[in-house]
């Protein structure tokens, strides 16, 4: 009799364990101050917009989003990851903008079996040999914009292109991506200090090189300063500036303004992409925040939708990491970028578009879609990933 009661208790306990959690906790650590703060702020706003439009829920569970600022410092980012994972016991970690900060921080999540869904940084090592079951990129593989830009430069027939990127992992990845699809001559390949804000020296060299196009990978405040100084030096008259989408997106247009008109860029998303999810997102974002969304905002929004779909698919049992993983991989959500699916390395397969900075019919400076460069494009590292 006693044994039966005990067994019943145990069964009850088990059943209780497998029951749905009463809420889902998200640790959101991002760069929210300093010259690159606009990126993190947009990701956060996009993410929170999606939660709000869902009635404060993700996958049917009340969502608690714990936001903190890594101050653009890897050590701070790591501390905050420790706090989120060990103290707050979050179900998902997300938010990092910069790959160097993310790479320093996410091992904490992995060691504690917490899933990291990246709303931005998606460096090549994590796509290939070091791919990780708990890492999902809801954005775009680091090289992808650069590959698309290289393809565009080849199509356009540029003969001599000057390349500039900061001296860190993502900088090297980006220029490697450009060169993978560019068939012309590289005038020079320059690596600057990460966080450098004065580009006078590099601009003098760009001028002397007489290149016909310049391609930059300079995220955040670096790109804003470079483009302002590029125009101030009078170089925009002689050379075509090509950038990855984030260097001439809405967050850069705000401080730089007219100087950006005519810049070509490449991205997986655009303000005017014609699908129902995107129209709904753009209208809601503008209404909520009084500004147009950037790429980063769209990524934050999509990250929330992805988590939302996964939590719903596991019926709220967010403690079951393996089930949540499978649900995330299925990616059953309607992305604002259009078609989206995960490769076996949990990096996206999606389209990339050519955009140009121009004025829309309301006189606002925006990115207009010019065409599709790649369709269902993955990444170059997936074959090195041992994950099935």
């Amino acid at each position, binding site marked *: 009799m006693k044994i039966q009661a005990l067994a019943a208790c145990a069964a009850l306990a088990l059943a209780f364990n497998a029951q749905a959690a009463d809420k889902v906790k998200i640790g959101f650590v991002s760069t929210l101050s300093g010259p690159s703060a606009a990126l993190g702020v947009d990701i956060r706003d996009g993410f929170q917009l999606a939660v709000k439009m869902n009635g404060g829920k993700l996958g049917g569970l009340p969502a608690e989003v714990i936001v903190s600022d890594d101050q653009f410092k890897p050590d701070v980012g790591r501390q905050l990851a420790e706090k989120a994972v060990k103290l707050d016991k979050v179900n998902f970690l997300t938010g990092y903008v910069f790959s160097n900060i993310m790479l320093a921080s996410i091992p904490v999540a992995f060691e504690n079996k917490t899933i990291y869904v990246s709303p931005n940084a998606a460096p090549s090592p994590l796509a290939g040999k070091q791919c990780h079951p708990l890492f999902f990129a809801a954005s775009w593989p680091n090289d992808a914009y650069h590959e698309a830009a290289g393809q565009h430069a080849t199509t356009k027939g540029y003969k001599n292109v000057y390349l500039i990127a900061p*001296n860190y992992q993502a900088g090297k990845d980006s220029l490697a991506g450009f060169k993978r699809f560019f068939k012309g001559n590289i005038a020079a*390949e320059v*690596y600057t*200090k990460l966080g450098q804000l*004065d580009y006078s020296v590099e601009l003098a060299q760009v001028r*002397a090189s007489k290149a016909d196009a310049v391609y930059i990978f300079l995220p955040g405040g670096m790109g804003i300063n470079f483009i302002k100084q590029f125009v*101030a*030096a009078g170089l925009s008259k002689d050379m075509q500036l090509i950038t990855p989408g984030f260097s001439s997106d809405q967050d850069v247009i705000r401080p730089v303004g007219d100087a950006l008109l005519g810049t070509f860029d490449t991205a997986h998303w655009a303000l005017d992409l014609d699908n129902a999810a995107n129209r709904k997102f753009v209208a809601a974002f503008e209404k909520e925040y009084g500004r147009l969304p950037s790429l980063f905002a769209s990524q934050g929004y999509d990250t929330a939708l992805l988590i939302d779909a996964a939590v719903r698919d596991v019926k709220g049992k967010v403690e079951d990491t393996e089930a949540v993983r499978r649900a995330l991989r299925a990616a059953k959500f309607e992305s604002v970028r259009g078609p989206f699916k995960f490769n076996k390395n949990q990096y996206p397969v999606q389209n990339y578009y050519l955009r140009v900075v121009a004025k829309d019919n309301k006189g606002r400076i925006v990115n207009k879609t010019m065409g599709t460069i790649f369709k269902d494009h993955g990444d170059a590292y997936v074959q090195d990933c041992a994950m099935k």
Partner: protein
Amino acid sequence: MIVEQGLNGLQFGLMLFLLAAGLTLVFGIMDMINLAHGSLYMLGAFVAAALVQATGSFAAGVLLAIPATGVLGMLLEVSLFRKLYQRDHLSQVLATFALILIANEAVRLVWGSDAALPMPQALSGPVELLPGLYYPAYRLLIIAVGLLVAVFLFLLINKTKIGMLVRAGASNREMALAMGVNIKTLFTVVFGVGAALCAVAGALLAPLLAVQVGMGENILILAFVVIVIGGIGSVRGAFVGAVLVGMVDTVGRAFLPILFGAFLPPQFASAAGPAIASVSIYLLMAVVLFVRPQGLFPARG
């Protein structure tokens, strides 16, 4: 390109000079290590950003920010630094380091972690100096202001009574004191001038770079390199040192990668060039210290 890079180096050097001049005087005359000098540079930039916004005019905002920061510096001197002169260098370093942290958080509280100071529209384009040689107008303005300030300081120190007292204080403090120089007031004035120079640099560089918390720390290290090279306490040394550091840094970044590219495989050259360029100024400092441990123009014979 060589002319253009020369101008770049000059512009960078002159801005360093504005910082180093104040630092070297405080160090030379008061024998005081002020790590918080960079915080005054940051404060100058934030004050300028706030005033430009309030007045709606770039020139008015910047011109008002200079005396405002000077007064702020004097208040700091009277309230805090005075008590530190008698202490040893370690206490000074600790106290002024604390001041950096306090200043950073105070600025974050008052203005947030960054502020916007847009470039005046009239100066945002290039100017054709020689046929085919374009240079950004705003950078020319910085060079002009930097040279003006250098001339002004030269006259102030070599031709005026205050300058005489400053020179006396720098070369032999005890003797100057014994001769009846009012050291207290002199120190306050010198500190105020140093703070005002910081504001000039901070306000002028703000539209090119970014107004943000922590902007002073990186440039402070360079300012210390400058005064060590130039000789502590010497404004002339600070000028030569600053232009030297500006030039070496620019030339290093511009030409070392090309030089390495000429005789090394490209993947190695692209890694080694930037690396060597970023240590080039410290190499310069090491060489100067080896040949002239007192710096190039020591104030104390």
